[in-house]
């Protein structure tokens, strides 16, 4: 393969690929930049998304190939004949640019190729299974965390509004909790949860995902980040809005302060929450790597770590691609939702 070939062969291969890469980039890249301004938001986003996906596939592909080590390297070297056969079977003996284009052609058709480690399973298969687990846990965590965050923000704002000593204390306590949740690396929180509920109290199972009870600790751990973000954002927004004239007037009318808060102030305070939906999911991904490892959850994060360590090229690209698609769709949804809640933004 390429490591046995002389340096010149490798250099010319690289040159070929760079050329092709540049050409493709030239064809694709300028289109969204020079699009007429009338084109709808969705088309622009979809085009942007496609370019991003193309970049990600290319970037990951070349990063992985240039890294030292291959998928069939083991502690005990395989005999060269077997190695050559293995490489031939997966097309790893062809020139790099040929591999790249045949891979791209497969990806466009929705085929992420075979996994080099789980010989019998396709990447589509592994990713589909992993994604199901990861997204289920992630969605539950976002939902729970956000709802808890909003509820506590309302409570804190209500307590501040009451203005009593106890109220201020409650607000301070909640804020400390929010900052702590923001500062707590999820793997530390997860480790504490396992130590407390599984090892010492023995109430909940520590690892694996077999029954719904097994999901409690991972979801709780993952929900820390959405909780912290939504609590801090909504609390600050509520504090700012409480000084607005329309809220002061409602108070002057003598409306129930809780009603003013939950009905009128909250509606406006939720808007900043929209802007963090995408970064929030990204943060959840960060958490999920360590959390899936701690709780032995067979999700995408755990697969990714093993795939990177094993140089399972196709699986790494597949998982990266799936997360990118999710991120792009979320970014798009966020902007579209902005247009829905704030008509001023629709025209631009």
């Amino acid at each position: 393969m390429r490591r046995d070939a002389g340096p010149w062969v490798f250099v010319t291969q690289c040159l070929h690929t760079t050329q092709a890469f540049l050409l493709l980039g030239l064809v694709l890249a300028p289109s969204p930049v020079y699009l007429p301004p009338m084109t709808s938001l969705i088309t622009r986003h979809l085009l942007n998304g496609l370019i991003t996906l193309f970049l990600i596939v290319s970037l990951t592909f070349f990063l992985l190939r240039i890294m030292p080590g291959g998928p069939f390297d083991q502690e005990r070297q395989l005999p060269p004949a077997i190695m050559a056969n293995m490489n031939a079977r997966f097309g790893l003996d062809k020139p790099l640019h040929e591999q790249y284009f045949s891979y791209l052609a497969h990806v466009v058709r929705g085929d992420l190729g075979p996994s080099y480690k789980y010989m019998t399973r396709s990447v589509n298969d592994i990713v589909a299974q992993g994604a199901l687990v990861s997204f289920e846990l992630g969605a539950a965590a976002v939902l729970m965390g956000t709802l808890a965050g909003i509820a506590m923000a309302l409570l804190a704002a209500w307590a501040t509004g009451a203005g009593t000593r106890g109220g201020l204390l409650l607000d301070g306590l909640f804020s400390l909790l929010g900052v702590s949740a923001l500062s707590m690396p999820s793997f530390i929180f997860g480790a504490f949860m396992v130590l407390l509920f599984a090892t010492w109290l023995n109430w909940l199972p520590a690892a694996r995902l077999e029954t719904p009870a097994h999901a409690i600790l991972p979801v709780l751990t993952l929900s820390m980040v959405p909780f912290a973000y939504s609590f801090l954002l909504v609390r600050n927004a509520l504090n700012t809005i409480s000084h607005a004239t329309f809220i002061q007037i409602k108070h002057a009318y003598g409306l129930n302060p809780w009603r003013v808060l939950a009905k009128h102030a909250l509606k406006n305070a939720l808007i900043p929450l929209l802007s963090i939906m995408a970064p929030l999911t990204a943060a959840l991904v960060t958490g999920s790597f360590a959390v899936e490892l701690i709780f032995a959850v067979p999700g995408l994060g755990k697969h990714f770590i093993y795939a990177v360590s094993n140089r399972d090229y196709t699986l790494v690209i597949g998982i990266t691609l799936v997360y990118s698609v999710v991120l792009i769709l979320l970014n798009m949804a966020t902007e579209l939702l902005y247009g829905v809640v704030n008509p001023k933004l629709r025209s631009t």
Partner: protein
Amino acid sequence: MSMTAPTTNSSPSAIAQQGLARLPASFWWAAAVLAVVLTMALAGLLMGDAAARIDPDAVTQPPSPLHWLGTDEMGRDLFARLSVGAIISLFIGLSTALVAMGIGTAYGTLAALCHNSRLENVDMAMMRFIDIMYSLPGLMVVILFSIFLGRSLLSIVLALAFFSWPDTARLIRGQVLALKQEAFVEAFTSLGGHPFRLVWRHFIPNLLSLMILSTTITVPRAILTESTLSFVGLGVAPPLSSWGTMINDGWQMIRMAPHLVLIPSIMLFLTMVALNLMGEALDHTLNPQA
């Protein structure tokens, strides 16, 4: 603040004192915690190889007068390892933030200068590139990059910085766009001032508080990401060990010696809280209208 302006002296030190007085109490708590961490890092620098010294007679011991925080499964002193880990965490956090701040400031300023000029398309393309950066799954590409670059401290810093600068660039661009509306900029340009001088003498001093703020946001984020990477075994490579590595090591024997997980975890958590509180306090002080 009353409308009657402060009549006391307005020497630089007096202004600095007023600024310090405006900082909330949380800032000083955070500063105290960070001072402890910094002292540990300094101690770590002076310790030599104490963190690597193996004592076969004292394996997985709880805290004692000889080993203040106990020893790990190989008989290494936990306090020494924590101190060396502190150097790594602080180094990665600070240098990532500095690199990201440099790239972000340059990029944001350049984009803002191109805005509403003959080079409008450059600004648009630059912003489009940032959009693309935001739709990359950051952590995954950080992992790939840092492995690609060789898993050294420097490669981790570069990989982290590569994904931290867009936030700074966006903030800076917004601020420069606002600055460009100011009368003094118009005066400067109509007098024929060179753009470089404009940036260096007028924009940079006005951007300083924003640059400090973005640093205080980046440092804890970089430390968090690094510790997560080290915890899953893809962070700093073996001869070095950060707090994340130590927690991972301790995790293997959490039932027998929970203090191996608890102590580095508490350290990391306190540092993160302190950094976040400090950032928030600085944000309130430097940015009072927000």
